[in-house]
């Protein structure tokens, strides 16, 4: 595991961020930020580009250790990045169990790949996968370790709309089976409303808006409560609603 500055999570918490401050070259990106994700909670983090969402994710992933304040996470944290980042020189199965301490790497790899609908692809080279398939393999790599905290960094951003919808269903199903705490960083409001238990908006390094989304899944896009939340979030993000249907 990557070294962490502090493991301050108390029981029942997947992530605990307290008074975190982060600046690049004097420009403040995260400003005295607090965030708690409880075990098994699905949190979506929205924000305009440059709002600091990816920075926060990197702090939680332990990829950036220079910051003020405390960042605590569950023992095992995994990330699905925006790009699948499969090592091109390892077969898909070997990518999934990369660095995993197990007696049966092949078995673990193929069962994890089966969960994401890629059974039989363990011996394929990553270059032969489509974008959606590669992203699913990347999810398998994250979930095979049963993380306490799963960080999703706009993992569906580069996919076409149909593939993205399939991926949303897949992520929900996997989350319901494994129950990690999830932080989904996204700029897609509908995606956040479809998936998350709670949505946050990050503005200028602080959480400027948040709301629970207490609706049963699967959720209907046209549900009036979702549409209300959508309008609120878009306003918070500074999107002018006049002119959009």
């Amino acid at each position, binding site marked *: *595991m990557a070294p962490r500055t502090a493991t301050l999570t108390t029981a029942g918490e997947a992530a605990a961020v307290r008074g975190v401050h982060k600046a690049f070259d004097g420009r403040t990106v995260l400003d005295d930020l607090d965030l708690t994700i409880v075990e098994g909670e699905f949190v979506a983090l929205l924000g305009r580009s440059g709002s600091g969402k990816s920075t926060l994710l990197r702090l939680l992933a332990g990829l950036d250790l220079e910051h003020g304040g405390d960042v605590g996470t569950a023992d095992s944290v*995994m990330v699905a990045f925006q790009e699948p980042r499969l*090592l091109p020189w390892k077969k898909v199965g070997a990518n999934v169990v*990369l660095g995993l301490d197990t007696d049966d790497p092949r078995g673990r790899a193929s069962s994890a790949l089966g969960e994401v609908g890629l059974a039989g692809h363990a*011996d*394929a*080279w990553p*270059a032969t996968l489509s974008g959606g398939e590669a992203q699913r393999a990347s999810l398998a790599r994250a979930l095979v370790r049963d993380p306490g905290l799963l960080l999703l960094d706009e993992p569906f951003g580069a996919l076409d709309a149909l593939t993205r919808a399939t991926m949303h269903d897949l992520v929900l199903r996997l989350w319901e089976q494994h129950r990690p705490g999830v932080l989904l960083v996204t700029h897609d409001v509908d995606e956040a409303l479809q998936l998350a238990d709670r949505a946050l908006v990050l503005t200028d390094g602080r959480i400027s808006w948040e709301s629970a989304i207490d609706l049963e899944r699967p959720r209907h896009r046209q549900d009036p409560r979702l549409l209300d939340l959508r309008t609120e979030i878009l306003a918070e993000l500074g999107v002018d609603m006049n002119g959009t249907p």
Partner: protein
Amino acid sequence: MLSLSTRRRPLSPPAPDSTVPEGRGPARRRPAGRTDPPARHRWISPLALLLTWQAGSAVGLIPERLLPGPSTIAATGLELLRDGTLLPAIGTSLQRVLIGFGIGAAAGTVLAVATGLSRWGENLLDPPMQMLRTLPIFGLIPLFILWFGIGELPKVALVVIAVVIPLYVNTYAGIRGVDARFHEVARVVGLGRAGTLRHVVLPGALPNLLVGLRLSLGSAWLALIVAEQINVDEGLGFMINSAREFLRTDIVVFGLIVYSLLGLATDSLVRLLERKALVWRRGLRP
């Protein structure tokens, strides 16, 4: 105001791109009406050259004393093979190259890993390596003779230097060129330093390492040929030099051909290795 009327299309086949969310692209096709000439055509011009050479020698246009014809050279080669001169000479030269190459390749790789992975290594090791790189290696010969005498050592040492430099430069560039995002993956999945080296750094640098290997094999043979010009009493260089003294142009030319065939053979070995080690690049299933 836009009015959007949706009309159902009568039984037209679905647009192909709307039904395939995750399909692979169509197979690459060559433009219609064009076929590449077959690869065997590549033999035409070398064979034509060889025939012209043979004909020129036969009619006396090319003086036998300066450049004997292909058939004479082939006969000479057969003779050298039969009288037991050729194989020991090849053995000696090959041995010099292989020893020098082995030492140089190991040193070059270790140096590249040390400089590629740590700032300390880079600051301490890279400057002298860059200095060595700018040094004309064949200018070292007089120095090597003074240091190591005229035995095997100066020849092998010259090959070592010739191998270390291209291998080091390419492997180092390869290690530094490994995508930083893969290093992040290594950190996230908890690969340690050794694991990262084994699973991320070395395979990522392998394409460059193999390029360096081919370049360094080429310069190994070059260094050997130059080294074998001085004070040798065995090997291919000795065979060529003694032939010169007896004005046996045919042996000189034959020796050169053997050198290039040996170079070609070792190069093909690395290319074979390349094909085996880099299958992932072409995305082939085994």
